[in-house]
């Protein structure tokens, strides 16, 4: 009951005209950048971080959350009509949805994706409403040692478990942690890794890193690979609506997808790929027509799309209740909290109830706006896809420049931006994931802080991380996540030999 009263208060915040406008702006912008290949919510929110100096926290977070939700809706349009999944979480949608579009069922695919996203987004938002306060209750018992171990667990899962290679993911993570350490050490006032450059004393801005890796690196890569031929956009021939049969086949898949996606997203591990694949195989198993999968089965769009949305919403649970970002976008939102001087974590809900509940209520509102924006206006979004690539990337780099130069008006930041862009290019070339670097950069300094606090409490005895039961459990989970697959593989190999 307490939760519902708080939520009602949140709606009072979210439904003020100004905040409704922020939500509308956010979801519109989010859908547009979701539709455009090469732009993601992490990059967009990073470029908009400067508004945190001008806009109140509630408005800014409603905007950011709208972008986050909108980008997921927009991304499905691109995967269905263009077959170029913008991110790994939409691979399945691209697989099944693009087949449907080729069979002239693009309208039905877009419809099931949009309504599925709405259903899943709403279920997941209900999940956030009730799970986040429960996690807070639990997290209030955490001391510095527990926090540090929890962060270690998140580090391991986001970089080693998700993605193609633990070694490359962890390299990206450590690179990010190092970037995060650059600047004056807040506890002792000593400069670290500034190499005599005074501009580095304040640390490297996360905008520079996110924009460098995602915008500059990506642009360099695409230009160098000649990957800029216009892809074929499949026209939508049927009506944007579903037949009775489509509904019957979709609704269960939406709900199952949401129930798979939300818990996985809400775990301190994150990752949207796993739930989409799980949902796809579940639907294939349960379907009466498994032979249609791979040739345009509507459940294969409905389920994974719902799972993707629900898990992305689930990521907000550890982010709001623990201050633990498990995706690049969440990490950048965390740095927005920091620029307001707000520390996300268990106390956030007590200290900033208006902000948190207003944000959660705005997610409900945003979902409704997105449904309205996406179904009737899909033709408009498709037109965005027709922007010629040279102009699109020219625009991206101009915005990247303002986002970076605008914060400090120092060419040093531009030089850094291009250097990190070069690193981003290499990471693309050698298949290193970029998200762990962003998460490491934001979460690394926080982990260090907790580490030093814990060590101060234990008077320098590192066994504190192993003697506290909860901390030990978290570390064991982390070790299992890191080593488990290797042990499993080695065991399988020796069994084969025997």
């Amino acid at each position, binding site marked *: 009951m307490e939760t519902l009263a708080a939520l009602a208060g949140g709606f009072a915040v979210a439904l003020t005209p100004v905040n409704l406008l922020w939500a509308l702006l956010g979801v519109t912008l989010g859908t547009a950048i979701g539709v455009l290949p090469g732009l993601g919510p992490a990059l967009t929110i990073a470029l908009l971080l400067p508004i945190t100096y*001008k806009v109140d926290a509630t408005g800014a977070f409603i905007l950011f959350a709208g972008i986050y939700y909108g980008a997921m809706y927009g991304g499905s349009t691109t995967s269905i009509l263009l077959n170029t999944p913008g991110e790994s979480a939409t691979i399945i949608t691209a697989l099944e949805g693009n087949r449907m579009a080729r069979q002239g069922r693009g309208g039905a695919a877009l419809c099931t994706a949009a309504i599925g996203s709405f259903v899943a987004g709403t279920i997941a938002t209900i999940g956030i409403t009730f799970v986040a306060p429960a996690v807070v209750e639990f997290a209030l018992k955490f001391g510095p040692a527990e926090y540090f171990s929890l962060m270690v667990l998140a580090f391991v899962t986001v970089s080693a478990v998700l993605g193609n290679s633990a070694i490359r993911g962890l390299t990206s993570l450590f690179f990010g942690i190092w970037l995060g350490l650059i600047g004056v050490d807040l506890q002792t006032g000593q400069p670290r890794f500034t190499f005599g450059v005074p501009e580095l004393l304040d640390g490297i801005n996360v905008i520079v890193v996110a924009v460098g890796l995602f915008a500059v690196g990506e642009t360099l890569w695409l230009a*160098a690979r000649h990957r800029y031929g216009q892809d074929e956009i499949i026209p939508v021939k049927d009506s944007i609506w579903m037949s009775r049969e489509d509904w019957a086949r979709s609704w269960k898949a939406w709900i199952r997808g949401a129930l798979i996606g939300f818990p996985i997203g809400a775990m301190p591990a994150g990752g949207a790929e796993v739930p989409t694949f799980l949902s796809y195989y579940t639907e294939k198993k349960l379907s009466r027509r498994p032979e249609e999968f791979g040739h345009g089965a509507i459940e294969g769009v409905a389920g994974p799309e719902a799972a993707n949305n629900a898990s992305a919403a689930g990521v907000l649970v550890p982010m709001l209740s623990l201050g633990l970002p498990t995706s690049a976008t969440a990490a950048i939102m965390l740095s927005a909290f920091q620029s307001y001087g707000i520390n996300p974590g268990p106390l956030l809900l007590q200290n900033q109830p208006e902000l948190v509940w207003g944000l959660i209520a705005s997610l409900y509102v945003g979902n409704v706006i997105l449904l309205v924006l996406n179904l009737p206006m899909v033709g408009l979004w498709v037109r965005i896809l027709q922007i010629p690539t040279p102009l699109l990337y020219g625009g991206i780099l101009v915005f990247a420049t303002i986002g970076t130069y605008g914060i400090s*008006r120092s060419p040093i930041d531009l030089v850094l931006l291009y250097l990190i862009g070069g690193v981003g290019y290499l990471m693309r070339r050698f298949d290193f994931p970029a998200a762990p670097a962003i998460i490491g950069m934001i979460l690394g300094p926080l982990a260090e802080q907790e580490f030093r606090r814990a060590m101060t409490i234990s008077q320098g005895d590192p066994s504190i991380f192993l003697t506290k039961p909860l901390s030990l459990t978290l570390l064991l989970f982390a070790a299992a996540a890191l080593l488990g697959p290797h042990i499993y593989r080695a065991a399988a190999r020796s069994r084969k030999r025997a």
Partner: protein
Amino acid sequence: MRPAKSELLLAVGVVTLALVVAYGTTEIPVSPLYSKIGPTVFPYMVVVGLALLGLALLVAALRGGWTQGDDEAHMPPDFRALGWLLAGLLLNVALISFLGFVIASILLFTCVARAFGSTRVGRDALIGAILALVTYLGFDRVLGFSIGAGILEGII
């Protein structure tokens, strides 16, 4: 399997980064008050991590690397396109303080469009100009962020 040359270079790069971070860590002044958990403990953990990962990458590279199945990664890069892009970025960084954001952005936009195969320089410059002016006005006049002065910025 034959060692993969490009992966080998990258692995050496990661090991070098570990050395740079190690050197940087030794340069951090440590006050004796913080001898136990001072500002260098965490950086040393990063050094160890990066060094171990760099060595693991080195081993992987010597065993043939990890991108041999990825044809896109092995395509020779289009140096003409990269050249235009780099030219745009360098012009931008060199000129933004003197000529202002708008002119630097027009040059950047035109060079990037060229890198992506556009040959209509006049059109690109015009679109770049509109884009740069709109964003400049949006940031400077509406939001009140100063993004620097310049020739065109002084006129409007």
